Each structure stands twice: as C-alpha cells, then as structure tokens.
C-alpha cells in the first residue's frame, strides 16, 4: 500500500470556537463544493429528514400527556421481547455477512483473476438474487426450499428425511445470504478490478504466490469494496423485513416495527421507537465499518490498465472452477428457477413440479403489463441515475474537501437504509399532500415524480457505499497532477475522477436500479393512479388472488429479465472502458 498521505482528511477538531472561522475559510476556498453540499443537504432535509421526523416524532411523546419524553425508549429496553428481537437481528445480520462472504468470494475472485469465458455472464447472473420480486419471490422460495417444497418432497421420497431450510433464524440467515450476497460480489469485484497491477507484480517478484499473495496483497487492497459490500449486507439484513415476514419470524426488530406501524387504526408508539432504534444502530454499524478502513490508504496511482493480472487456467483447474461456480449459481438462483416454473406452470401444489405447463400467464401479462414495464424502467432508471450523481458528489465532498460537517451528508444518506418504506411514504403524504405544485396542478405527494424521489432516497445508501469505495481507491495525486497542468476543479472531476470511478459508479447504479425495480413498501402507499403504477405494484395486485399466482410470477420473471439486461449492459460498458483504457495505455507506452 502506498502512502500518499495528503488525501486522508484530518479527524476530530475543535467544534465550538473554530467552527465559524472554519466555515468562512471553507467558503472562500471551496465555494462551488460548499454550494453543492448545501444543495444536497437541502434535498436530504426536504425528502428524508423532514418527512421521517413528521412520522417518528411520536416516539418521543408521552402518549398520555403529549409531552416530550424518553420513557418509550426505556420501555424498549425493559421489554424482553424487544431485547430478544434486538439480539436476533444482530445475530442474523452478522451471520448473513459471514455466509454471504463465503458465497461471493469465489465468484468475485475467479471472475476477476482468471481468463474466464462468460465472466460477464457470471457477474450478471450473480446480481439476479438481489431481484426478488415481492410476494412471488417469497412463494417461489417456498415452492423450492419450503417444508413441502420440491427439494424436501424429493428428499422425503428417496431418503425419508427433510431439511428445515426455511425455519427460524437459520432459515432467515440462509435466505438473506442468498438474497443479498451480490452487494459484496458487486463491490468486491469493482475493487478487484481497480487494484494496481504493479503492486501484485511487485509482490510476485518478491516471491508471494497463491493464497499468500491473495491474503497479504490482493484482499487487503480490495478492502474498501469488501467493507462497503459487507456493511451493506449487514445494514440491509438488519433493517430488512421482507424475509423475516416471509419466514414468519416475528422476533426481530424490523418486523416488530412494521407489524406495529401497519396495523389498522392503531398508533402504538413502540413501532416508531423501534424505527428510531434501527436508524441509530445502522449509523453505529456504519461508523464501525468506517473505523475498519480508516487510517489506511487504499489509493493507488496507476489506473486504466489496472485490475489483477488475469491468467489462464489449466484444464483441470478450469473444470473445478466451473463446477464450483455452477454449484453456487444453482443454489442462489433456485428461487428464480422456481419463479420461472411458476410462470409457466398451471397448478403447483404439494408436488415437485407444476401439474402442467402453459403460456396463458404470459399472454395475460402482455396484454396488461406494458405500462407497468415502462413505468418501472422510468422510475428505477431515474432513481438510480440521481443516486449515482448524488453519491458521487457526496463521496467527493466527504473525501476531497475540508468542508466542516461534510461527514453529515454521508451519514444522513446512509441512514435512509434504516427507514422503513412505509414510514417514508406516510411522511411524504403528510408533508407534501397539501403542497400543490405550480405547473403540475396536483399535490406533490400524488405526482409520479414523488415515487422517483422515494426510490432515490431509499436506494441512495447502496450507491453511496459503492461510490465512496471507488473514490477511496483513487490517489489524490492524480487530481493534483491535473490541477497542476491547469485543469479547474470541475474539469478535474469530469475528466479524471469520474472516469476513474466508473466501475464503482456502475456498481452503484446496478444495485440501486435492480433493487428499485422491485421496491414495493413505499410505492404501494404513493401510487395514486393505476396509470402510474410500476411492476412491483402489478405483481402485488396479481398476488392477491388464487388465480393471479401464474401471471404474478410471469411479471416477476419480466422484472428479473429487465434488471438482468440492464446489469449486463452496464458490465459491458465498464468492460469496454477497461479494454479501451488498456489499449490507450499500451499505445502510449509504445510511443504511438
């Protein structure tokens, strides 16, 4: 690891007296960045802090008198059920990071280390588990892994035993790891691909090979990406309620909050207390992740031709690697195989496979689904685009400027991961329903753009982690060089920083897009007209009836295909950039 020194921002400093002076000084030096930071702060305040505060303030109210109190938080810690839930959430999140790491390490390593036919395909398929369409994904999972799912029915018939894949906390860990490991895979791959090859060569020259090379050089250099991915898995699992609800595990924090917030006509403040606890704990774990990479410098100077040296595999190695990867993909993609079967199946009940196959569900879906598809592309695409723009800006402000309080942006943006979708949506309705937009002529809360804003806010943490990790790997000396050569700050960002961050930005875009495309909890509250509804909402509508399971699954398959294609295209884009850069470099080296 090279020590370039200057890039690490100074840590804690005097807050009180020096602050004003700092602000003025910072303003003079970095007017543009400061304005940008203020604009982002205003956006986050308007669409995250204010709406959420509108909803969760009841956590701080005495329900009897309406006065400010912390007694609700005391109740939280006094209740054994909540303590148990807290412990369970922590345990499940930690174990999910471990299992997800075991799944994603080989996938990331083999595809970025060796010359592999179809590496792009594998990395694309590896993203698919993130796209678990609501409701249908859950049913598909049950049909495959459930107590009476295909695997257990087969096991029971031939071996006379069954495996409780989907029972209790271990079931949650399994499903969460399968669902969220792509966070690690994507971010780790992005990191591996930007490692300075000369460092690896130097290590090899000094005699490091195989595992030692990986353990001492490669993995440490890829740390920012790994930590970003692992932190996301941890946060997401900690705050996720879909899977616990699917497995009917209620003794975890997120489902406890959700169940209490969303029951009819009741306003139990404990639901909001738990939401506040989720936000606080998420920030805490983010801070721990920050500590893990602080004080080290991951930046390397050489870019472009970077990435690990790829070598060819010997035939038997190749067979082994393919075998391992196929096995992993088979396991993590089995819910999608179940989804595919459901979408073509007639009746599938207590049997290994559906009773028969039909195209009727797709026919039904294609007559109704086009608006859903275009809406989804529009919403998820815009949201992911805003996300990477915001994330790049925040990452730059945090790591490259000395604006006081700049870390606040990072923390606020990431805290969004802990805000339950239903809380954000209620907050929007409460804050913006009376605000009629001039020119649009309807309340902001019922305009389709509010759905895009909600998705942007909810998926910002993903993009933020990816972009921060990417920037961490770029040496500030490159920018200094550009500025010495006369480039302005904006010019430097545009011509140097953003291109070098391309891998990380693409990773952020893909995760934000993929997950936004199947988001339901906030959109279901915010959709105010059928014409504005996205795919996830269409799936929800179908999955309300016995007859709708097939068409719902067909819509789910469409969602997976859309996201799969988008992912593949962005991988292609990044890959082409890399090859182009490598070509440029070679030509430059040859003095052409």
């Amino acid at each position: 690891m090279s020590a370039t020194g200057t890039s690490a921002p100074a840590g804690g400093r005097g807050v009180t007296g020096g602050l004003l002076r700092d602000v003025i000084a910072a303003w003079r030096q970095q007017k543009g960045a400061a304005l940008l930071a203020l604009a982002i702060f205003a956006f986050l305040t308007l669409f995250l802090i204010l709406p959420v505060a509108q909803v969760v303030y009841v956590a701080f109210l005495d329900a009897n008198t309406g006065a400010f109190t912390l007694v609700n938080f005391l109740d939280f810690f006094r209740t054994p059920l909540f303590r148990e839930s807290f412990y369970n959430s922590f345990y499940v999140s930690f174990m999910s990071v471990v299992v997800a790491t075991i799944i994603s390490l080989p996938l990331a390593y083999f595809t970025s280390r060796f010359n592999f036919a179809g590496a792009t395909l594998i990395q694309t398929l590896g993203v698919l588990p993130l796209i678990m369409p609501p409701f249908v994904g859950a049913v598909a999972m049950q049909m495959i892994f459930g107590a009476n799912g295909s695997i257990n029915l087969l096991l029971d018939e031939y071996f006379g035993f069954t495996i409780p894949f989907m029972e209790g906390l271990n079931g949650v860990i399994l499903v969460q790891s399968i669902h969220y490991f792509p966070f690690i895979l994507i971010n780790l791959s992005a990191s591996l691909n930007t490692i300075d090859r000369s460092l690896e060569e130097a290590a090899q020259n000094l005699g490091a090979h195989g595992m030692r090379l990986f353990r001492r050089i490669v993995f440490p250099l890829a740390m920012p990406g790994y930590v970003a991915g692992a932190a996301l898995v941890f946060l997401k699992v900690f705050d996720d309620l879909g899977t616990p609800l699917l497995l009917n595990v209620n003794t975890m924090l997120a489902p406890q909050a959700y169940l209490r917030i969303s029951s009819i006509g009741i306003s139990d403040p404990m639901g909001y207390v738990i939401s506040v606890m989720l936000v606080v704990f998420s920030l805490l774990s983010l801070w721990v992740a920050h500590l893990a990479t602080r004080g080290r410098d991951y930046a390397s100077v050489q870019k472009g031709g970077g990435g690990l040296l790829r070598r060819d595999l010997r035939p038997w190695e190749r067979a082994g690697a393919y075998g391992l990867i196929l096995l992993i993909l088979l396991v993590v993609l089995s819910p999608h195989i179940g989804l595919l079967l459901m979408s073509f199946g007639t009746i599938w009940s207590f049997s290994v496979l559906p009773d028969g196959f039909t195209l009727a569900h797709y026919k039904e879906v294609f007559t109704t689904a086009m608006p859903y598809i275009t809406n989804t592309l529009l919403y998820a695409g815009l949201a992911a685009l805003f996300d990477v723009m915001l994330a790049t800006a925040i990452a730059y402000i945090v790591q490259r400027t000395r604006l006081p309080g700049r870390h606040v942006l990072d923390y606020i943006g990431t805290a969004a991961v802990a805000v339950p979708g239903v809380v954000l949506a209620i907050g929007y309705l409460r804050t913006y329903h009376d605000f009629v937009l001039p020119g649009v002529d309807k309340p902001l809360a019922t305009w389709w753009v509010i759905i895009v804003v909600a998705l942007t806010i909810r998926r910002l943490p993903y993009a933020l982690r990816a972009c921060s990790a990417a920037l961490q790997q770029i040496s500030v000396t490159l920018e200094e060089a550009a500025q010495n050569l006369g480039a302005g700050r904006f010019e430097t960002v545009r011509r140097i920083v953003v291109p070098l961050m391309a891998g990380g930005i693409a990773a952020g875009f893909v995760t934000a897009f993929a997950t936004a495309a199947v988001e339901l909890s906030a959109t279901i509250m915010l959709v105010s007209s059928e014409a504005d509804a996205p795919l996830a909402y269409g799936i929800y509508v179908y999955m309300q009836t016995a007859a709708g399971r097939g068409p719902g699954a067909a819509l789910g398959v469409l969602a997976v295909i859309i996201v799969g294609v988008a992912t593949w295209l962005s991988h292609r884009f990044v890959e082409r950039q890399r090859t182009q850069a490598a070509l440029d470099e070679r030509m430059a080296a040859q003095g052409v």
Partner: protein
Amino acid sequence: MLARTFMAAIMASAVALLPVSIAKAAEIENKLVVVTSFPKDLTGVFKRAFEAKYPGTKVDMLKKKTTAGVKYIQETASNNTSDIFWASAPDAFEVLKGDGLLAQYQVQAKGIPEKIGAFPLNDPDGYYKGFAASGYGIMWNTRYLKAKKLPEPKEWEDLAKPVYFGHVGMSAPSRSGTTHLTVETVLQGLGWEKGWALWKAIGGNLKTVTERSFGVPSGVNSGEFGIGIVIDFFGFSSKATGYPVEFRYPSTTALVPANIAIVKNAPHPKAAAAFIEFVLSPEGQKLLLDPKIQRLPVRPELYDGPAKHLPNPFKGEIAASVAFDVKKSKARYNLVNSLFDVMITYRLDDLRAATKAIHEAAAALASKPNAEAQKLLDEARALVAAVPIDEAKSLDPAFASIFKKKRKKKTDKVTGRQAEVEQQWDAMVKANYEKARALAEKAKAMAQ
C-alpha cells in the same frame, strides 16, 4: 344518452313527474377513483361492466391493502382525491367513519334486506353499505391431507387436536380485519375464557402466523401447510382456479358484510353514487358470482336463480350461530389484537413447545392412565389457557383506551402505556408456557 342508465330508470319509476331533469341528474362525471383492497379479479369485472354502462366515465381502481388504504385516505384527507372506499372489513370503515372521513349516502336501490344473519347489513348511520356477505371457515389442501394421512377438519375445535400439530396456518387479527372478525366471533360465541383457551390450543398447532390474510390461502394452495382459517371466498375462488382444496363453514361462525362507502369531499360525487347503485343492482350483484370472485350476494332472490350453488345466508343455510355484537367488538378492538399478538404471534415458539409436550403427555396417559400425572397435565393446560385479563376488564373503557392512543382532546387523560401493559402480559405468558411445558414433560415421564 345517459337517460338510459339504471339509476335514472329507478328514479324515473319512483318519480315519474320530471323525466327531463332526472336525466340531467343522472349525468355523471367522467372519472371515478376507487380505493379498494379487493383483488383484480373482482375490481376488473366491476370496472369493465361499469364503464360499459357509463361510456363517458373512466374508473381508476387504486388497489391498496386495507390498512394502507385507510392510512392513504387519512393522510390525503386535506386534499382528497378519492371517491369511494371499497373493502371487506367493517372495522376499517368504522375507523374512517370515526375520523369523519366518509360521506352519508342514501341508497336508491330496493330489495336489499336490513340484516344478513344476525349482522346488520348497512351502517345504521348511513355511512357505509354492505354489498356482499362473507363467512369464515376452514380450508384445506386435499393432497396434503392425503399425503400426511390427516382427517378432514369440521369444527374450530378440531384444529386443536394433536393430529393437526404443525399443520395449521392463520393470520393475526392485528394484520387482517377478516381474521379479527373470526377471532372475535369465537370469543363471543364461546365466551371470553373458553374462546381464548380454544385460540391458544389452535395457536399451539400453528405452523405459522401469516403477515397478511391472503398468506393463508396462498400457503394452503402451495401445500406449505395443510389447513387454513380463511374467509369463504378465498376457499371458493382457490377451488375455482383449480387448486386441490376444499372449504367448510364450522357451526360457530358469523356472516359479515363486505362494504362500500363514499369518501367525504369526493371529487366525483355523482359517479360515486352511480357506482354504489350499480354494485347493489341485480346486474351488479350477479357479477359477484363470477367463478374467480364467488362472494355471497346480498339480494335474496339470486339464491333461487344464478346463485343456487352457494349457501343461502338468508335462509340459515350457513349455521351462523353467533349473534355478533358490533359494539362489544369495537370497544376492545385494539386490545384483542394486542392480546393475540402477545400470547400467540410473538410467542409462537414457546406456545408450540408447551403444546407439543401436552400432546405427548396426553398420548402417554391415554395408554397408561395415571391420576397424579393427569392432574399435572390439567394444570399445564390451564396454564397455557390462562388470559392476563378477564372479559370485564377487556370491556372497561378506561383500560381499553390505553390501546387507542389517539387522544381526541388535549385534556383526555389516559393512564398506563401499551408497551408497559404488553410487557407485563408477555412476562406472564412466557412464564406460563415454560411452566406448562415442564409440567407436561413431568406428567409424561410419570406415565411411562
């Protein structure tokens, strides 16, 4: 052109004096926004038929689950854009009515009785109307029962039998308005103590408590669990779709109406009125018989004609033995939800462990009777069945208000916090289940 409409026809026959002005009154707005929890199979049929009848009007069906629908109408009330709220659970309508968010409407259509079974069909204050009836019952997967060699269940009590351990699924009353009605019906039918004892005995046999009411038929259809406690049309429509399932009404059941209401300050009031009239007309009621809908119409004459295959609720063909007391149900609505969650949903594992031990001890005692062990077993059963509060307390308005939280006025005083009460209940319930398990294990050991 719109003079031909059904509503105009009714009104014209009633007031034959001024047909011209009536024709104008029947002209409706070109848009209608319906917030509904009903599935596409139901809303689509009504949307198409209504739009065919009123070609100038476009219906926007906003599908939200009941809880989200209620929240949506509450949060958007200041600038309301919805015309109609259309859902099953009467209590959701009660909540909206209590918040002053519904408009009164006098139905023009004739020939609909006041009561269905013992339940009043319409809101006595005229805010919402019943348009279809539903009863609760037991649904099962025939393949599942055959594979696991289980008998068909007939009554709620059957679901508590040891043979069904781990095979039953239901939703929680706090999650699903329809499940709430089922729970409350049994509590009223059997009485508070016996009712809860039965729910806990069934609770001990549960494979799962699903997060939404459709999770139950979905699980039975998949074969995830074999038996579910569901509302009738879930059973009927699953069967009509082709799933290997059956449905039966037990004798302790109540028939309750599914409802429709106009939202206060509706932007399209005339279209809203026309829609309600359409749903209640013979023509609209017949649409309920669509194989994918299968709800019980509220026009008795249909049961002699197209609805012959369905049980006639107006002739007592569904043994709705419980006279459902709406006031009682409303008074302790949130309290019952909370009690169910604390005792069953959140402590399912503990409850199951205790129930399993009790089943095993009972089996051991059946083959080798032992008076002393029997006493321990009875004690264990009593511990599981124990409820933290009695019926009088559940109906005490001061106590129930702890679970309501919404103070109407600043001066309203409530003592105690829900979290505090739940915590006490939880401690008691957990200790009881643990002790019951220990006693039952001891009884089993003695019998062996």
